[in-house]
């Protein structure tokens, strides 16, 4: 089986995000960057699928030069090789443009399975999977919390809402967005990290994929206008030292008079 995993490098979830003074962009310089947490599940699922079925695993990203670190992380976990579509201004691309770049490259090789994380924790757009699948004319399943790959047919569980799950049957190649709970991602071992440094990385420029110099504007479907910091939330009343019954009375009173929910 030939398996691809699409990943994104994102700021650490604990990072404090700042705006440029003109409020037109976000300052990412100096932030700790990590492999998107949901993509770790995608990498792990690709590795497990390969371990069960044999084959090859390939990790791909659209990102600036420094995104190589995220690709190396995936290879340190065990992915065989990487494709790096280098776009220094990747942060400014909309999801349709990143998906178009990835689709063009992935269409050049035949993959039996393409994994993604269910969403990236930076922009929270959650559209890459569906757009990529549509561009590749493949089916997709999102919010996947369990899967079993058989001969030509996969059984996939999708978390819907409120505990409801759909069990999908998928014939042939497809794009699969995995969510937390599907597996426990492995840690990269020290030998894994050493090996990752020597694994092949195919570095590709958008122009090499046939994208014209002005593709950043021509491919774009969605455009940001400005950014703002949300208003800070202020603390309300704090009760300390009350006995449990009094504390409960205060909460009940709050539920009735302020929140008006009972």
């Amino acid at each position, binding site marked *: 089986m030939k398996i691809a995993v699409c990943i994104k490098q994102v700021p650490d979830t604990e990072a404090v995000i700042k705006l440029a003074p003109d409020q037109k962009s976000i300052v990412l310089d100096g932030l700790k960057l990590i492999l998107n947490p949901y993509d770790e599940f995608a990498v792990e699922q690709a590795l497990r699928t390969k371990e069960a079925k044999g084959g090859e695993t390939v990790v791909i990203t659209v990102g600036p030069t420094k995104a190589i670190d995220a690709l190396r992380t995936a290879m340190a976990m065990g992915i065989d090789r990487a494709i790096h579509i280098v776009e220094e201004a990747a942060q400014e691309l909309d999801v349709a443009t990143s998906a178009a770049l990835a689709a063009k490259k992935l269409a050049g090789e035949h993959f039996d399975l393409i994994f993604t994380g269910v969403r990236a924790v930076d922009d929270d757009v959650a559209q890459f999977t569906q757009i990529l699948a*549509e561009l590749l004319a493949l*089916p997709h399943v999102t919010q996947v919390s369990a899967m079993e790959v058989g001969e030509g047919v996969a059984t996939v569980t999708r978390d819907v809402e409120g505990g409801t799950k759909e069990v999908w049957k998928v014939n042939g190649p497809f794009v699969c967005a995995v969510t937390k709970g599907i597996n426990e991602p492995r840690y990269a071992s020290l030998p894994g990290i050493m090996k990752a440094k020597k694994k092949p990385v195919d570095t590709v420029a958008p122009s090499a994929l046939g994208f014209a110099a002005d593709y950043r504007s021509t491919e774009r479907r969605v455009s*940001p206008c400005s950014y703002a910091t949300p208003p800070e*939330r202020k603390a309300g009343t704090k*009760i300390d030292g009350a006995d449990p019954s009094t504390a409960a009375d205060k909460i009940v009173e709050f539920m009735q008079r302020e929140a008006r929910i009972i």
Partner: protein
Amino acid sequence: MAKKVLVLTEVKNNAFKKSTLEVLSKACELRSGNELELSALYLGATNPPDLSVLGKHGCGKCFIAVDPSLGNYNPELYTKVLTDLLSTYQPDLVLASFGALYKDLVPKVATRLHSGAVSDCVDLQWDGADLIATRPIYAGKILQRVKVTANGTKFYLARPNVFPVAEHATTCEPVTFAPNLQGLEPKAIVAEVRRGTSQVPDLTEAPIIVSGGRALKSAENFSILEGLAALLNAPVGASRAACDAGYREHIWQVGQTGKVVNPVFYLAAGISGAIQHLAGMKTSKYIVAINTDPEAPIFKIASLGVVGDLFKILPELTKKVRAIVG
């Protein structure tokens, strides 16, 4: 010329979902900036519920696409019906709720039409003839203003539980739209739907949420929250620490790597308030926190903070709430 707005509806337990009425209500409000012709689409295997509820919320027309194969969600079939309708009706805007269904479907449809979609809008406003969305990014640390700039139909997905439901009484006329699904054999199909046993609303749509953290100490101890949650018809959420410790399934996790929630009332019991949890719930209208640590970060954003032992306070609270609502 009036702009055409199509709202994609969603049905649960044979009634239009509240999230659909929220989107319709917002669409009605947008009539004050531009002249709008408002219609809706219903897709399904059987006839829709009573349309008068759509009329009550300002929708004058509902396209009805019924076909036996539209019972379970299928991206390929739904995309075909939707793109066929959009090609004929040619709306300027399509609005839908950012729930499991349209979150999955709309990007595919928009891509097939060479257009784009904005996810998770918490505000929609006109700037002249352009519709500008505000959406949280970096788990709400930043708000982004964004618009669809592709030509043709533009798609916006609204976060559930944000836009208030309002009445704008009119009469909703049904318009039959016959799906043409001949020759389509989807490679991916839903073979089985396993309904959740819980009757409570999903975290993202619930007006009240009762959540527990690592201080609950075990999966069994979550029962202390379940009694209260049942009285309030609320789902029981959990922090990442609690989910990672195996106390609760990940689908109930609130936070940056779980669900982002927006209820009227959020009870955080034994949750210290890691930045990643706060990111997922700090837009709740009212937050009540119970924690033994007076310095817990959750108290910095709580409307009411109670320093104390949840194992002693919650049984008292449950008893008192039961006396009122039970």
